[in-house]
């Protein structure tokens, strides 16, 4: 098998890996914000449930969670799971990453000095204005490095989708490597991940720089 054939057959997998990556970010970044609010809720039950949710999402392997999201509806409710595979993958990834993002957001918010809230309150800002105009921009700046780490992990985690027989790039690499008795697909896979993460790091660095106008 020539290199170009190998690249072509792995190309579809790369697109699938990218799809998982972007959809997961699209859903988990805002979802994490919601989880963070629930986690900081004054209602004890809500806070408690959210804590358990975060503990489970962070305390169990993502691979296991994917199996649960996919097979759970069938084994628990007897629902048909035909055609549900991709949804389950995105659901599993998003719910998992939302938990991590929620904790990062929370850390960032708790690092904002109380004086910022008080200044905003005395100046008459509403709660919503205070959060979006005063707190959030500062939070984003402080949490960017942690978010970058998480996103880089996500790039590599996309290979877990193969657990649910979704043929993303790395599973194709393994299949081609096995059938061709060749190490080449793994090298291609490695380069793909490296480039993807290089792009992530580059973009995030630009964003960090753009926010460096103040300390």
């Amino acid at each position, binding site marked *: 098998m020539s290199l170009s054939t190998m690249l072509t057959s792995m190309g579809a997998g790369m697109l699938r890996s990218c799809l998982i990556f972007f959809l997961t970010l699209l859903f988990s970044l805002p979802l994490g914000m919601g989880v963070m609010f629930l986690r900081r809720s004054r209602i004890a039950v809500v806070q408690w449930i959210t804590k358990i949710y975060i503990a489970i999402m962070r305390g169990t392997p993502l691979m296991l969670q994917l199996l649960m999201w996919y097979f759970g509806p069938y084994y628990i409710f007897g629902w048909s799971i035909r055609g549900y595979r991709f949804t389950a993958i995105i659901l599993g990834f998003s719910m998992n990453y939302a938990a991590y993002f929620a904790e990062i957001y929370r850390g960032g918010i708790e690092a904002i*000095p109380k004086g910022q809230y008080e*200044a905003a309150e*005395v100046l008459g800002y509403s709660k919503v*204005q205070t959060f979006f105009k005063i707190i959030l921009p*500062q939070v984003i700046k402080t949490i960017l490095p942690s978010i970058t780490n998480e996103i880089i992990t996500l790039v590599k985690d996309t290979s877990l989708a193969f657990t649910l027989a979704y043929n993303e790039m790395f599973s194709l690499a393994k299949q081609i490597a096995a059938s061709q008795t060749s190490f080449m697909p793994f090298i291609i896979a490695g380069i793909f991940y490296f480039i993807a993460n290089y792009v992530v790091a580059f973009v995030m660095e630009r964003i960090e720089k753009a926010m460096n106008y103040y300390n």
Partner: protein
Amino acid sequence: MILQMSGIQKSFGELEVLKDISLHVDAGEVVSIIGPSGSGKSTLLRCATFLERIDAGEIRYMDKAAVTTDGNGTAEYVHHRELNEIKRYFGLVFQQFNLFPHYSVLKNVMDAPIHVQKRSKEEVREEAMELLRKMDLENRADAYPCQLSGGQQQRVAIARALALKPSILFFDEPTSALDPELTGEVLKVIRQLAEEKMTMVVVTHEMPFARAVSNRVIFMDKGVIVEQGHPEAVFGDPQQERTKQFLRNYQR
């Protein structure tokens, strides 16, 4: 009368911080509050600006009730919409400035008038530049707080508070976080405001300043007002033993 606080009580758990304090401020008055740390003077200011909830007592601004106390002795705050209206009457300058670090100097001053008071941008900009000129900061309008000295930051904070056109301005130890050589520029600005008959309540440790600028000095200790009066009276001829002791310690 701009501010009327009466029978204010405030405890943090077991600790009684304010014991039945009353404070009235008339238009154009400059009131200095002095006293040892832990005397409750900062807490009094935070209660007046609703950053802390009082347990009992009454607070009125411009004769509008913000907090009343019913027969049971518990404080009742008015609905938050009314409270927000009342908040427009005062401004507060913090010890730690609390400028918004991600906003430029000009935006720090302009943002609340535009987004809270919904005033026109052009009008606010003109006024903000005027305020910065007054603070001798017009050439730093585009700088960020982190690029300014502490004294400059505090002057921006004062401009920010003034931009909302408050009827009364509170200062919570405005020079305590500053290097000694920078306190002068901030005190100069406050003195200037006093000359313009701005109503102000200043919690401070700067005794010469309090003596020179205020119309009235209040000495607080252990949650009560021990003595108050004209600065010359309080500083020159204190009547209470605790006041004398405090001032003696201070002069050393």
